């Protein structure tokens, strides 16, 4: 296998409202310990949180680059008002040679004509859209989380660099309304940043006590933790070289090592998954979307091993 074919691992942006120091220390740890090639940085969910991490951003970028990581700056997923738009513009203006990831069409427009990344919040479902965005300057595309493996394979067959969301709670929806604030009897404007209380999101159960979803401010995530470690081999066969891990409160360096060891052929996916399960606590694993089924389901190697 040539170097060109080597599989790359990435950490997606932290989706949660972690305390700024925790956020910074997470990336220091990643810089020192995690075998990932790329790290996406920046606030994707809520513009109100961005000022908190801003002071640490230069140091974190420096540490990650010193550790040989490619740094990509991620931008907001839902842009409604001038504050949101200004934040996206600021990220692009300050990129200073770093790649920027667009998560809304407005960022796609701003990045036209220069190399950039398309994030999983932009709807790329087919080759027509993919080709248009490539012509616009996209050189890498992380696909929407609900795409089945069959579609992923079709898109990977072209010349675009495709990245697949391979680990973490699935970002399922985003809204103008803040559910964290609503849960605490607050409005979005007066939210008191209560989303900072739940490092992996606030668990949402059904009336009959089943775990279902997780709230993260204006974003709704799955309760289950998506995990495509059992499908890496299939996806490598489809020509996919990039896999994205979404940060959670467990030891993400250990999660990255588990994925790396399977990609390098040094570990069996089922064995490596034991390390991963230990890092995510009670979250069940899921990969149903890849199999064209309900997102919460678990199929394939991990499901067989669990039986």
């Amino acid at each position, binding site marked *: 296998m040539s170097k060109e074919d080597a599989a790359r691992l990435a950490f997606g942006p932290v989706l949660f409202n972690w305390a700024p120091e925790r956020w910074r220390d997470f990336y220091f740890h990643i810089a020192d310990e995690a075998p990932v090639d790329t790290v996406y940085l920046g606030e994707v969910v809520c513009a109100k949180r961005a000022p908190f991490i801003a002071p640490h951003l230069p140091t974190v970028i420096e540490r990650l680059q010193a550790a040989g990581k490619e740094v990509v700056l991620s931008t907001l997923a839902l842009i409604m008002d001038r504050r949101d738009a200004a934040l996206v513009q600021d990220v692009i203006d300050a990129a200073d040679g770093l790649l920027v990831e667009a998560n809304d069409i407005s960022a796609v427009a701003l990045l036209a004509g220069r190399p950039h990344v398309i994030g999983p919040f932009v709807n790329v479902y087919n*080759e027509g859209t993919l080709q248009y965005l490539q012509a616009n300057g996209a050189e890498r595309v992380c696909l929407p989380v*609900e795409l089945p493996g069959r579609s992923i394979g079709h898109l990977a067959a072209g010349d675009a660099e495709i990245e697949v969301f391979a680990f973490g709670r699935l970002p399922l929806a985003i809204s103008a309304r803040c559910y964290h604030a609503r849960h605490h009897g607050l409005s979005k404007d007066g939210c008191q940043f209560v989303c900072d209380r739940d490092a992996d999101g606030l668990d949402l159960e059904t009336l009959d006590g089943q775990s279902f979803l997780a709230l993260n401010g204006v974003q709704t995530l799955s309760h289950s933790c998506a995990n495509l470690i059992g499908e890496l081999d299939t996806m490598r066969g489809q020509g996919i070289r990039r896999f994205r891990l979404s940060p959670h409160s467990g030891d993400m360096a250990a999660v990255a090592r588990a994925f790396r060891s399977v990609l390098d052929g040094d570990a069996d996916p089922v064995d490596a998954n034991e390390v991963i399960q230990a890092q995510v606590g009670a979250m069940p694993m899921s990969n149903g979307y890849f199999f064209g089924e309900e997102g919460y389901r678990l199929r394939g190697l991990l499901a067989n091993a669990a039986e």
Partner: protein
Amino acid sequence: MSRRLELVCPAGTPASLRAAVDAGGDVVYLGFRDETNARNFPGLNFSRKELEEGLDYAHAAGAHVYVAINTFPEAGNLAPWHRAVDDAARLGADALILADIGLASYAAEHHPDTRRHLSVQASASNPRAISFYREAFGISRVVLPRVLTVPEIKRLHDEIDVETEVFVFGGLCVMAEGRCALSSYATGGSPNINGVCSPASHIRYVEHGDQMLSMLGKFAINAFSPGEKAGYPTLCKGRFVAGGRTSYLFEEPTSLNAAELLPDLIDAGVTALKIEGRQRGRAYVAQVVSELRRAVDAAARGDVSEADLSALAEGQARTTGAYRKTWR
């Protein structure tokens, strides 16, 4: 001087189309009977022949027909969506309502003379995104996502060169449209891919103690006591438990009614009002359209007259949704 807003009405069947036209709708929007549109429900929507007849009926009455081709084409299987665009254009649809970038590009290239509108499913919620679709694909109108306040819509008009259409009545998405995978997570049925949300095929009711649970796939969405009316279990209108507290955490089982905001929407620069409900019956369509026709005409005269649509909300609460900032 007030303006008369264009009233864009839903039709899931030819009978509803005729009802909407007869009740004074300016425009009827509809979709083909397949996965190319976002209301892909059993027994609904139009064949090519029905579209042709519907176009004749509407045009004879001076009304227009927009064709929604607003799901995201499947990778490796673009043909059904391309055919839908080709056929709608060939039959003389007054506009195509599109969400996917690739499909908008196809329509602009192959049917430059057919008007193109940007579906709410494209989630274009800011001036730059809207202008992108305008410049890239010649979009003449955007259906705005249900995330903006009226003042935000007004400011938007200062920065775009595109007409806007906003939802005025009917079902209410609380998540940004086109960016919601809740339904596919629970049922495998995706609004973006399959044109369905919380599909009836996955709903069942099971006894749970002295209550009845409405289930979507394996997840309970709500519970009802004996004799209590069970609303349709749309995922985001369900009752859930967080931090030990039970609530309608995303949204109550409510529907949108922005009739009282018509003067504000006129002032904000909106061109058209959209009524949600292609899955609704002919009688519902006739009643909502005629009530809103009256309200729109009154607003155009400068009369403040709230349309009497309370009977149509199925005993549900009504909300002005995201149009008021307090909703957030």
